[in-house]
């Protein structure tokens, strides 16, 4: 028998799961945080783009032959990566077609800076994605079956589920690449400039509307990759986005609206809170615990726990 007391074993196990789950949450939050930080648009459809990411990974894995080529171990990871560019293209197109008309320079001088129109539009996109998903994908829950989700690494006294561990590592890697992109590359810096001061960015010759489109598409793509990773151990259907929207908003608000790094730590915290709550609360209440955290933050620390507000990315 294990030399550790049961309560300690439980606590360590829950912490480990919380951190692993938190990594994927952190990645989705970073995507949402990027969009809000650059565009100042509240995107209600973020969860549904996550759902699209899950299905994109699923179809890439099953029908595009990714599973056949890369096998059941690496296939799901490759499929999750592929969800990024696929959903990127969809988001780019939707921004060009719809969102650009009510945000960016088009929203300057509009009523409430165009926020009403943006809310209604992203809500509309969410509904279309959900119902379109139902029509195309069906309501039957799917999952990307991989033997990884039934295997674990064991480091006394904690089990690390392999699919969660892999998802965690990949999510961290993608978040790191995004961080480097934003802080080192010319494109990333231009995005930050456009977020910081749109008028001044135009004076520098930065096309702010294009910057918004890029930020929107990258933010969606990153969330979609997170979706593809979660799909390895979480069954999904077209309404699954609703379950994650609350997680993403809590993470982003925790991290301080507009701060990308803050969103990362916010998402991580949500994962921990969600898992730790299962130690004291019935498992059905784990998302309620997140909502309580959300309310507490909004009431007592609206600038977030980690964010130095919008000052630093």
């Amino acid at each position: 028998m294990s030399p550790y007391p049961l309560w300690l074993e439980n606590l360590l196990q829950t912490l480990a799961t919380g951190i692993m789950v938190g990594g994927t949450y952190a990645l989705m939050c970073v995507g949402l945080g990027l969009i809000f930080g650059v565009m100042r648009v509240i995107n209600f459809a973020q969860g549904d783009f996550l759902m699209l990411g899950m299905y994109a990974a699923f179809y890439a894995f099953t029908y595009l032959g990714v599973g056949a080529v890369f096998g059941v171990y690496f296939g799901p990871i490759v499929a999750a990566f592929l969800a990024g560019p696929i959903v990127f293209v969809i988001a780019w197109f939707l921004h060009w077609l719809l969102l650009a008309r009510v945000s960016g320079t088009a929203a300057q001088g509009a009523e409430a800076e165009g926020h009403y129109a943006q809310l209604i539009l992203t809500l509309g996109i969410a509904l279309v994605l959900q119902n379109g998903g139902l029509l195309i994908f069906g309501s039957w829950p799917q999952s990307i079956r991989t033997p990884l989700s039934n295997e674990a690494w064991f480091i006394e006294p904690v089990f690390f589920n392999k699919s969660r561990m892999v998802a965690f590592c990949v999510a961290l890697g993608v978040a790191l690449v995004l961080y480097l992109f934003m802080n080192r590359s010319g494109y990333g810096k231009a995005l930050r400039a456009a977020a910081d001061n749109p008028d001044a960015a135009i004076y520098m010759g930065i096309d702010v509307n294009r910057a918004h489109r890029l930020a929107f598409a990258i933010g969606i793509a990153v969330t979609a990759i997170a979706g593809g990773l979660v799909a390895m151990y979480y069954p999904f259907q077209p309404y699954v986005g609703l379950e994650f929207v609350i997680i993403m908003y809590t993470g982003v608000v925790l991290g301080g609206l507009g701060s990308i790094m803050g969103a990362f730590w916010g998402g991580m915290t949500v994962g921990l809170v969600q898992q730790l709550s299962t130690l004291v609360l019935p498992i059905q209440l784990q998302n309620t615990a997140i909502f309580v955290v959300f309310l507490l933050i909004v009431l007592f620390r609206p600038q977030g726990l980690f964010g130095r507000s919008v000052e630093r990315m």
Partner: protein
Amino acid sequence: MLKIEKLQVSYGGLRALSEVSLEVGQGEFVAVVGPNGAGKTTLFKSISGTVPVESGRITLDGADLLAVPPARRAHLGLAHVPEGRQVFSSMTVLENLEMGAHTAAGKANWEENIAQIYQLFPRLKDRTRQLAGTLSGGEQQMLAIGRGLASAPRILMLDEPSLGLAPAVADDIFEVVQHIHQERGLAILLVEQRVAEALESCDRGYVLESGRTVLTGTHETLVSDRRVQQSYLGM
């Protein structure tokens, strides 16, 4: 080089500029002076395209500037140093300068430009990694001008660079602007409320009041004009 003809701009029915005409020649230093609310900033914003123009023409080297999307105008050689500095406060000094060099000309001459900018404003050189939002007002103004210069412009547009600065710091800034103009022959369009300093350095000037040009002329005619002396120079 830059030519504005009968420019008209309104905000929600209220006219801010009516029939304003103005010209900046190659290597010329042009000042626009006038009281608060005269429409000076509006004039700059219409050149840069962040305010919609009702009627009139703006041309650069004879080509219609109003047909060029706002974000492309910097690439044609216009550097707008806006009122209130508007630095990217969440980015470092160096990153701000890099954003200035977003234009092709700015990228091509980056090494050379940055060396010159640091020579003009040594205080920026000591603070390359500092966040622009934490700079003092004077340093932010230096950065705003440096950021404009980093684009390797053909016309530098300065909107009230002395705003909110201590007189000594403002004098330094004026001196640097003079220096840039004389050493490099860079064309300058300067908006100022400190009329004496602005008219002292310019080749030509315009007096703008309530959205109209009420007076225009060379440096000599303006400083010797009775109305200018009485209303602006306190003589």
